[in-house]
């Protein structure tokens, strides 16, 4: 058992300068037979009890607080927008993105665009790549009519019967197979 010397000021004052045998410590008593000077250890900052209080924090830098600075426009440029902005109307879109048309709203069914302004037609692949399903989401209106028209279109194009699954409540149609490009072009031709 090692002795723990507390470096508290008032406690040590009694021992400072005195040379005597250490009374309560059995191991030291056996080992040392002659008087040992008591050491005052330096202040140890490793614990809350031992470190002195901090009274004054000096500021390291001189600074200016500038209210409504000229450079604020550069700060505003760095902040993101809160909602996704709407696309601007232009004559041509060279990348191949097609905006939705107004005449599509007159049809008995409607396909909304996603929040990033794209058509909600996706490909689901499962079973290690052997199962492919094309899904059209966000369908409003007469979904069964859309289903019939889509099936007819895909059958004429691919000369093959195409199976679909209609989910009226969740507003989607699943087409068995990879017909994403055909479905997208069909939807764009309708103006969605």
């Amino acid at each position, binding site marked *: 058992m090692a002795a723990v010397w507390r470096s508290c000021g008032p406690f040590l004052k009694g021992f400072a300068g005195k040379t005597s045998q250490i009374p309560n410590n059995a191991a030291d008593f056996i080992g040392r037979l002659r008087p040992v000077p008591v050491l005052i250890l330096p202040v140890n900052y490793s614990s809350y009890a031992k470190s002195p209080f901090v009274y004054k924090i000096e500021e390291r830098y001189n600074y200016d607080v500038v209210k409504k600075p000229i450079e604020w426009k*550069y*700060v505003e440029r760095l*902040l993101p927008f809160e909602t996704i902005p709407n696309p601007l109307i232009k004559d041509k879109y060279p990348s191949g993105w097609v905006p939705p048309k107004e005449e599509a709203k007159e049809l008995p069914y409607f396909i909304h665009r996603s929040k990033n302004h794209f058509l909600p037609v996706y490909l689901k692949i499962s079973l290690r790549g052997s199962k492919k399903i094309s899904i059209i989401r966000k369908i409003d209106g007469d979904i069964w009519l859309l289903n019939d028209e889509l099936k007819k279109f895909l059958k004429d194009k691919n000369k093959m019967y195409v199976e679909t699954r209609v989910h009226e409540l969740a507003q989607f149609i699943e087409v068995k197979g990879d017909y994403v490009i055909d479905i997208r072009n069909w939807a764009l031709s309708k103006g969605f």
Partner: protein
Amino acid sequence: MVVINMVPVTRFRSAPNFMRLGYETGNLLIYVFLTNRTTKASCKDVNTQKFPLLQLQVMLETNRIDSKQPIDLCTLCNTGLVSIKPASMEFGFQLTDEGADKFKSKICIEVQHAKESVIAAIERNGGIIRTAYYDPRSLHVIKNPEKWFEKGVPIPKRLLPPQDAIGYYTSAENRGYLADPEEISKHRLVLAQKYGYDLPKIEDDPDYEMLTSMKDARQLFYGLEPGWVISLKDQTIIKPKECTQ
């Protein structure tokens, strides 16, 4: 956890099976992750996230990115569609030439790596492209500036690229940010002759000031100096009076 010893996996009353060495309970395996990655900053086409020109064009058309202002890593991350993982040793974005033929916008863009064909596609339309280096700490700042400003920490100084990457960023062929501007304008002409297009005159452009707005090598954000503390709530900037470093 990574499996480094033979760890038996038993179910009730069955013979023990051992998980294969290196298995990380479904995470991307470290030996797969590191096959195509290096810690070297010089291997830019491996360390940077690919950003096709086609996606950039679509973003500009759908008003996701404002083409009237310089584009850098911050604007690309602020779109919300792409982000950088500096902790996974990603150094930024590289522009790929997918959609280079369809690219028809005049922009001032700053990326971390770009191929020659990409540089040609942007300069053909009267734009300016620069490649710049951000050290990993600066990447954390620039990837999400709003989050950094909310911390109340002063904007740090951008560090210079490491030894193996300095060659890339001082060469005018790669349009490095540390390269000689005269060399860059010479190489613009060289590239125009190589790819066969007329180099548009930027000096006559009404957007000349925006196109030539360049960040300093030590600056993280254009217009804002390192050492400033920005308070978003009070709309104030705290600027140090003297330079103490």
